[in-house]
């Protein structure tokens, strides 16, 4: 039986045709994957189904009936649930409040919080998704937040579950957990639409896969009839190699180091405990770990957003006394952020302004504080081409670029800045295969240019493929230091979960 | 024929200070002199004027001015209110150039420079200035042939109401609420304190400034604070801020008394007539009327006129004085009044001088 069908959906945005006559049909009880480049129109299509966008034309059928879904309320009534690419959670609310919002148990007008907590507890037990109902969401790791999102839609009895890039922020273990849940839901007859850039996952979980490109459906394939490679090619239009060629570069001197770093996070809890390590020029040091084990504290301490209660940070040999992004950058740090919209870009600024930001006060971009537009334009044009930003027009606002291209703008900026040390925090989060490949290429380039790179990633394969040395963070401590050639994903996985420690390898 | 009448009418322009129409104080008082008395009209809804009935006209003249020869003068009023200081000069300019007024009245000492400058610029127009003499560019007083200034001895009427307060208080504590520390208000304060000191040397005086002429809520809590401290007679010279004083007095009722300022507030049913023991009167209305009359009669002269107790330009209102003071005390007040008129007593103008001021001992 057909659970959901969209027919000839067209959706225009002021600048793009996001969905160009899209038709798809999804069977009840299947896991249906949609893949496609950044900006292909996947999320847009799902938001239309969920009533968040109104299509310019086209029809939607739910369980065979033509439906007019005007808002999420309608969608919820039709038993459609959606986990959004960007989490739809209220950080200051508790888990329970987030889950029951919109359909609250009540006594008269009074919100019956006690009963809500009980209901959430039952629900989490029933689906095997463990959570603490009274914890505030802002205190949860992203993985647990994901559970909250799923519980939210399950509580509403959704029959059709849409998951838009649910694994982008999950650890392999968490992803495994999620897949178990999804398979169980499928056994219960639920229909699942699954969007992901990680083709391996798609191949693991999906029954059928639709490939979208530039707003159109390229094709729908049965899983057994296809392969990761073929999917990648369908998406991007060419062959994609995600394997990183191992280059060996002579290690130089220390470009960055921390010693005995202990950091309290904004909640006042110690998030990083006595961490020490060095990054040498010409090497990529990977930091592996489950999200919430000190990565954020480490990054924020390096940027000066959190003041360490103990320990020192050095750029080269120089101890950094007053740590601000400005001071770190003038001493030779570049930074790729995990949160490009909030940290990486000034969205309403044009690409050109974003590209020179940070160097804007240097010659030739400015002279005695006055901007030199000609020099800026020349430089930006060159960089946009070099980094293959599409479209290569510096006068378009950053917010109008797709996620992948936004990331390239950030790369163009950070790479062109004079630096000896690169802090790369989850540089491929949410990027499609093409863009991910590009980022990998850039990181290897860095190494070749004898820069030191600190790569923080939740993606174990990424860490294994790129790093020369891997540090594993667990509970704010470095619980192991290994060389990728001498370890396995399993071993690191165990360390990440705090089940194993490994001494520092002496060189 | 009606048209002819309007053409021959003398036009009188008036610029209010920022307080504007309806301040229940000297702007309104000046407007009474111009609109009610000189022009015999009533300001009505939708703007404009309508004729005033004879009975209303008579009723509008207070008892102490009945003998001042107030009668309609067949003039046409043009009133411009000022929103901010910066409006004074453009308003005067408008009245002179566009409205072609014969006399332009500036209400309040804040117009001193504006009138001073304009009088030089328009030597053919006559000006009247209330509460101040005209000022030149450096703020000094100048004598101009086309400006007639009217000053008031607020300290004299302040003194009399202070003397009444000194008798009226049962707690030996009296209060004073000022708007801002500006000359006329300071003169009131000085007179009031001197008056209290004269009739009741034991009395403690609470003084407060709200720094605002237009916030009754502040006047109310200031008064409440004084009542809390034990004051039972309170005088204000604070414009609308003082309305809050009457509000507080009215709410508390007996035994508290309020004293009004500028006009006879004991007659104003909108304030607190039942608990207004007296008011310090300052007849801006009379001064305005007199100035207009001099223009109509052709006797207008430049120079300064200072109105005092002597000529009835200031005074105190009888209101509830009889109910509070004994006959003996009332006659003493009248005595004091006489002594000021004949110069036996000189009331201080500066509150700081009150402490060292020698109080009269026999009266």
């Amino acid at each position, binding site marked *: 039986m057909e659970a959901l069908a969209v027919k000839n959906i067209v959706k*225009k945005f*002021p600048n793009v045709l996001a969905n160009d006559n899209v038709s798809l049909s999804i069977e009840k009880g299947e896991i249906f994957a949609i893949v496609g480049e950044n900006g292909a129109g996947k999320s847009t299509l799902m938001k239309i189904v969920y009533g968040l966008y*109104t299509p*310019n034309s086209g029809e939607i059928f739910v369980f065979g009936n033509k439906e007019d879904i005007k808002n999420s309320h309608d969608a919820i009534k039709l038993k459609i649930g959606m986990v959004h690419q960007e989490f739809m959670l209220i950080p200051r609310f508790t888990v329970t409040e987030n889950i029951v919002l919109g359909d609250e148990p009540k006594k008269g007008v009074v919100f019956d919080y006690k009963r809500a907590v009980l209901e959430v507890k039952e629900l989490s037990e029933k689906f095997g998704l463990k959570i603490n109902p009274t914890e505030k969401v802002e205190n949860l790791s992203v993985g647990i937040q994901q559970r909250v999102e799923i519980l939210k839609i399950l509580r509403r009895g959704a029959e059709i579950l849409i998951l838009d890039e649910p694994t982008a922020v999950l650890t392999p273990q968490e992803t495994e957990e999620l897949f178990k849940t999804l398979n169980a839901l499928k056994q219960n007859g639920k229909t699942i639409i699954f969007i992901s850039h990680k083709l391996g996952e798609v191949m693991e979980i999906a029954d059928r896969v639709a490939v979208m490109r530039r707003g159109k459906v390229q094709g729908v394939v049965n899983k057994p009839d296809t392969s990761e490679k073929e999917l990648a090619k369908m998406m991007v239009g060419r062959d994609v190699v995600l394997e990183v060629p191992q280059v060996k570069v002579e290690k130089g001197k220390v470009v960055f180091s921390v010693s005995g770093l202990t950091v309290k996070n904004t909640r006042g809890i110690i998030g990083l405990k006595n961490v020490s390590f060095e990054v040498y020029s010409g090497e990529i040091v990977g930091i592996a770990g489950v999200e919430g084990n000190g990565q954020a504290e480490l990054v924020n301490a390096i940027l000066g*957003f959190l003041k360490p209660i103990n320990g020192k940070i050095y750029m080269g040999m120089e101890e950094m006394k007053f740590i*601000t*992004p*400005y001071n770190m*950058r*003038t001493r030779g740090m570049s930074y790729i*952020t995990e949160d490009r919209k*909030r940290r*990486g870009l*000034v969205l*309403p*600024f044009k690409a050109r*302004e974003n590209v020179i*930001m*940070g160097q*804007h*006060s240097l010659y030739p971009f*400015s002279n005695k*504080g*006055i*901007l030199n537009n000609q020099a800026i334009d020349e430089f930006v044009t060159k960089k946009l081409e070099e980094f293959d930003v599409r479209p290569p027009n510096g006068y378009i606002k950053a917010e109008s670029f797709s996620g992948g291209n936004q990331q390239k703008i950030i790369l163009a900026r950070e790479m062109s800045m004079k630096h000896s040390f690169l802090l790369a925090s989850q540089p491929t989060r949410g990027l499609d295969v093409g863009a991910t490949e590009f980022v990998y290429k850039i990181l290897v380039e860095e190494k070749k240019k004898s820069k030191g790179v600190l790569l923080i990633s939740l993606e174990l394969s990424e860490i294994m493929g790129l790093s020369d040395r891997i540090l594993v963070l667990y509970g704010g401590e470095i619980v192991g230091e290994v060389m990728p050639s001498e370890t396995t994903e399993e071993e690191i996985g165990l360390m990440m979960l705090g089940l194993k420690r490994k001494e520092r390898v002496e060189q | 024929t009606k048209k002819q009448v309007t053409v021959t009418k003398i036009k009188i322009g008036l610029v209010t200070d*920022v307080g504007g129409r309806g301040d229940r104080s000297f702007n309104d008082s000046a407007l009474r002199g111009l609109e009610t008395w000189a022009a015999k009209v009533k300001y009505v809804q*939708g*703007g404009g004027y309508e004729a005033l009935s004879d009975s209303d006209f008579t009723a509008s003249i207070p008892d102490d001015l009945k003998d001042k020869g107030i009668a309609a003068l067949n003039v046409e009023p*043009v009133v*411009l*209110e*000022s*929103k*901010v*200081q*910066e*409006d004074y*000069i*453009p*308003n005067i300019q*408008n009245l002179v*150039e*566009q409205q072609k007024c014969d006399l332009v009245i500036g209400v309040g*000492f*804040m117009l001193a*420079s504006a009138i001073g400058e304009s009088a030089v610029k328009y030597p053919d127009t006559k000006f009247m200035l209330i509460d*101040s003499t*005209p*000022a030149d*560019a*450096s*703020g*000094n*007083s100048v004598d101009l042939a086309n400006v007639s200034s009217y000053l008031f001895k607020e300290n004299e009427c302040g003194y009399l109401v202070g003397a009444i307060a000194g008798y009226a208080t049962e707690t030996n504590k009296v209060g004073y609420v000022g708007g*801002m*520390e*500006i000359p006329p208000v300071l003169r009131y304060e000085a007179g009031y304190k001197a008056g209290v000191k004269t009739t009741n040397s034991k009395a403690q005086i609470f003084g407060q*400034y709200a*720094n605002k002429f*237009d916030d009754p809520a502040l006047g109310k809590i200031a008064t409440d604070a004084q009542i809390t401290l034990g004051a039972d007679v309170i005088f204000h010279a604070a414009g609308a801020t003082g309305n809050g004083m009457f509000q507080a007095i009215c709410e508390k009722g007996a035994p508290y008394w309020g004293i009004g300022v500028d006009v006879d507030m004991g007659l104003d049913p909108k304030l607190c007539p039942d608990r207004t023991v007296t008011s310090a009167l300052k007849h801006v209305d009379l001064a305005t009327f007199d100035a207009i009359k001099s223009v109509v009669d052709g006797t207008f002269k430049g120079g300064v006129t200072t109105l005092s107790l002597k000529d009835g330009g200031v005074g105190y209102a009888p209101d509830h004085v009889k109910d509070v003071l004994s006959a003996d005390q009332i006659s003493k007040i009248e005595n004091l009044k006489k002594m000021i008129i004949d110069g036996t007593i000189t009331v201080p103008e500066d509150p700081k001088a009150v402490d060292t001021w020698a109080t009269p001992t026999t009266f």
Partner: protein
Amino acid sequence: MKELFYRLFVERKEKYWWMNLLVPVTSIVIALIVGAIFIWSTGRDPFLAYKLLFNASGLVPGPYWKSSFTEMLLSSSLFIATGLAFAIAARSGLFSIGAEGQFTVGAITAAYFGYAKPFAALPTIIHLTIILLMVMLAGGLWGFVAGYLRAKKGINEVIVTIMLNWIAFHLIEGWLVTGPMAADVSTGVISGTPSVSPTARLPIILHNTRLNIGILIMIAVIIIIWFLLYKTTFGFEIRAMGHTAVWGMEASRVQGININKRIMQVMLISGAIAALGGSFITLGINFHYPPVADSGYGFDGIAVALIGQNEPFGILFSGILIGALRTGATAVQIAHIPKTFPSIIEGLIVAFIALQELIRYLLFKLVKTKRTAQTEGGLTQ
């Protein structure tokens, strides 16, 4: 000039650039129409009211044009000052309601250095320069306090600026003007501070009017601020801060902008500009600080900045517009309309600026079919 042209017509060409000009103009027209209906519904003559208003406003030539036009420019320069003060803070993501207090601080500082003995003997150029510098310093400091507390202590600038307004007001009018700076009433007649010396008066640029160089100074300030915003690294940084303000200016900080320093600098500049406006009222209009000066220019500056869309040249036009409405305001009393009527128009203009989505939608509806209007002009709900 080329740059201005570029900004107005080329850069804004995002499909329907004319919208950016048409929307404010339409707002003004609709506000005037609504105002007329209002006057008419209260039984007064809207035509007469507007005739008086515009004749006296200086916007349209008429019999007394010279004086009304110059008066209009005189008051516009004050609105431009407070408008710019709000705008520059707003552009950097700060919400400053402090122009009111900074304005009065400027006015009192100008009065002091205008009459104080050692300065009063100096030649005009030197005297004025000293005064204006001191004015900007004092106003700048007043703004800086809010900037400092925001930058160093994270204290919301809205509260601090509101409190500082009142503190300025009470200290000036409850202490300085009636105390140490009070004019000697025994030698003069004005209340408040003594008059400033003739060398402290802003030179008149049009004979027989009050129009002085204040407006020229303000135009220069507009150009400087525009240059600062769009041509310098400083402006680059504060615009970045403004754009990222919703997220605590995080992106700006990460990119190496010293936002704390910039916040303090911006508040200093903002305060200095507002104070400059305040000094004009002392040095060009009243020539002393009056005992009561509850002017409201600071709050109107917010409206001016918003009508001018926080753009320096936009504020030039909105400042002139509001200046004209104010200049014409007292004249409407001849038609027995209260002097605050122009405030209604001013508020309505601001309201329609806030409703620009609606106006865009309506304008598109005029020129296009309904469907495209919905997707391109406005939003559907």
